[in-house]
Structure formats: structure tokens, C-alpha cells
């Protein structure tokens, strides 16, 4: 799906847990997520802290969307 959205001309960032699969499939902008059952959250943390983690990931995703890339790029911290 990421690739088809990219092919249609829209910049897209893939926020996902299993980065090797995203790389294999061919996403160009990749932001590694927390865990498979809760990619943008961490239920072990208090709610406010969890939300801050989520916000940080979304900020990274938006930053990736604003970053020029020429090849597959994983946006780590």
C-alpha cells in the first residue's frame, strides 16, 4: 500500500515495527515503531508518557515527510 501511494505521487512515510519487511517491500521513508501490537504506544507506561512517545513518533514521521530522500531511508532518533 505504501508503494502504491508513493507511485501515485503522494509523499508517504511508513511507521512500522518490523523495519526489515518494510525495506523488503520497498517503502522509501520509514520510521521504526514501538511494538507489533502497539506500534504508536506503550501500555506499560502511564498515559501521559505514552502519549508523549506517540507524539514523538508522529513528529518523526512528519519530519521524514519534509526530508528529501533519494533512496530508502530509515529515520532513527
Amino acid at each position, binding site marked *: *500500500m*505504501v*508503494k*502504491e*501511494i*508513493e*507511485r*501515485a*505521487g*503522494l*509523499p*508517504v*512515510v*511508513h*511507521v*512500522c*515495527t*518490523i523495519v*526489515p*519487511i*518494510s525495506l*523488503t*517491500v*520497498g517503502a*522509501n*521513508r520509514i520510521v521504526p*515503531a514501538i*511494538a*507489533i*501490537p*502497539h*506500534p*504508536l*504506544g506503550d*501500555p506499560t507506561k502511564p498515559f501521559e508518557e*505514552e*502519549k508523549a512517545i*506517540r*507524539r514523538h*513518533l*508522529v*513528529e518523526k*514521521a*512528519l519530519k521524514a*515527510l*519534509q*526530508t*528529501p*530522500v*533519494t*533512496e530508502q*531511508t530509515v529515520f532513527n532518533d
Partner: protein
Amino acid sequence: MSYRVVHYINQFFAGIGGEEKADHKPEIREGVVGPGMALNNALGDEAEIVATAICGDTYFATDIEKAAVEVLEMIRKYNPDAVVLGPAFNAGRYGSACGAMGDAIATELGIPVVSGMYPENPGVEMYRKSMYIIETPDSARGMGKAVPAMAKMLLKLLKGEKTGLPSEEGYIERGIRINKFYEKLAAERCVDMFVSKLKGEPFVTEYPMPVFDRVEPNLPVTDMKNATVAIVTSGGICPKGNPDHIEASSASKYGEYSIEGYDDLTSADHCTAHGGYDATYADDDPDRVLPVDVMREMEKEGVFKKLHNKFYTTVGNGTAVASAKKFGAAIADKLKADGVDAVILTST
């Protein structure tokens, strides 16, 4: 003397549990477990499963390198002559785990490894060059077909017998080229093929071209403050009750739902339709998969202009690549027609 084989399987095939047990830590047990029984029978007197290594799919996929080392050390203690992985059919995390283990074992122990997967399993693309992966059907219904083929391949490798072509042995092409003498010159064979093609007759190429389906990255968003951003997910988030009945696996459709007026997704209004991970956390707070709460916050702060008022969703669990392609293209058309500038796609 029979060869010593270690078998690797996931928590599901070990009978430990489904998604709720997918974080099961690696362990190893003496003898056969689950599908190992059939495999052991197929190996006959020539080889025997001495131990079965087990690991939860999510545990493995969360840190592939660490898990591979942990399982490898457990397997090493049994001094195996070969290792069988799976079969994983079309289970993505399981396939990746089998592939990573096969790769680690072949490199570190230098012994034969055989796995079994459906060609669309992401583990195939990642690891087919490292090992023999027998082509299997997409679900465990194909166990009866997969196991004898894997056993046959393993015995061949153990005995150092010559292996045939992928089409003869039933394994997935590894990209290995071998020299071969033909009666006819290359030019003649080439013309023969061309003539067959013109006549519409079948012919087999001697060198299939690799298919690189890569898409060039698009230019970045330059004016985020004025951009409309959409969120899409393969994590199955949908209005509570899953009104369009998106399938828990092998999804045949995607959903389009309004988030107009939602500042936050909660267990009262949304849930996940996904059957490939433990739904507890996503059902408790769907923002953990589709981050509507923080996107709304940032929209209000003016980080970007607008959160698109619809989200698109499907279940990425054993879903055919052809279906995902179709969904992606259709979703992209709609997003473009609605003037969306950029997309965040989340996957579990």
C-alpha cells in the same frame, strides 16, 4: 547412525497459544513437538529430530538479531547435523523468523537448513538466497504437502547429493547460476525461443530477469503548515463492530471512515479487525495504532493545516500482495482527489 536434526517452530505450532502468547521467549525441548511428528516420520530411519526450538513470533520479530542469537545458542548445544525451520506458510513474522534462523545457522554452524514458505511470505524475499525454502501453500492446510518435500530436500543435503533445479525439487529460486552444456549453440536456442514466442507456444527462458518493483521517493512536503495530512493503516483500526466486516486475515477489502469531530479514538467507538496480533492494546486505545489524538493536537497547534477527515484501513495479515496493491492504488486516488498532500501509514 541417523543424522541429528533440530526443528524450529513458533508458539502457535508448539501448541502454546495464539497471538496472546506471541511474546513467548525462546525455549528448546527434547524430541518432537507439533508438526515435528510428521516431519520425523517423513525423515524415516535416516534422520531423527533430537530437539525442537520454540519462539513466539512477536518476540522474534521485535528484535530479530537478538532472538536469532538466543535461539542459535540453544540449538548449538544439541550438535545438530541439520536444522528444519517451519514450515511458515504465509505467516510473515514466522517466515522472517525461520529465515533469520536459517541464515544464522548456515553462517555460524555451516550445516544444511531447510524451510518451507508460501512465495508471498516476506521471509522469502529476505532470505531465499541464504537457504532452500520449499514452496508451500498459504496455510497450514498444506502441511501434508510441505513436510515430505522439506524432508526429502533435507536428506539430499545431509547426504551431499546433488540438488536439482527449483522446478524439479520444489524450492524457491535462490538466484544461483550454474554452468550447463547444451547441444545447440546459444544463438540457435535464442532463435528457437523467439520462434516459439511468435507462434504463441510456451518456452522457458534460461535467465529470468529479476523484477525490481521499486518506486522513486516523492519530493518532500515543503510547506507543512499549509498541508493536509491523511492517516492510513494496515493495522485494522475501524469503527466499533467492524461495520464493513473487514476480514481478520486475507483481507478482501479496505474501509474508508470519517474521523470528523473525533479528537481521540477510544474503546467506546473504535477497535481493530486485525487477527494477526494480540488485539488487547489496540482495542483498549486505538490511538496506539492510528494516532488520531496526537494528530488532532498538532493540527490545533498549527504544525500542519489539516488532518484529513477520513482515514483508510485494512488488515495486513496474510493479505495477498495483489490485494494490497489494489487497495493502495484506490486509496491513493481518493486521497489525491481530496487534495491530501502527504500520508502517514502505520503498520503493526
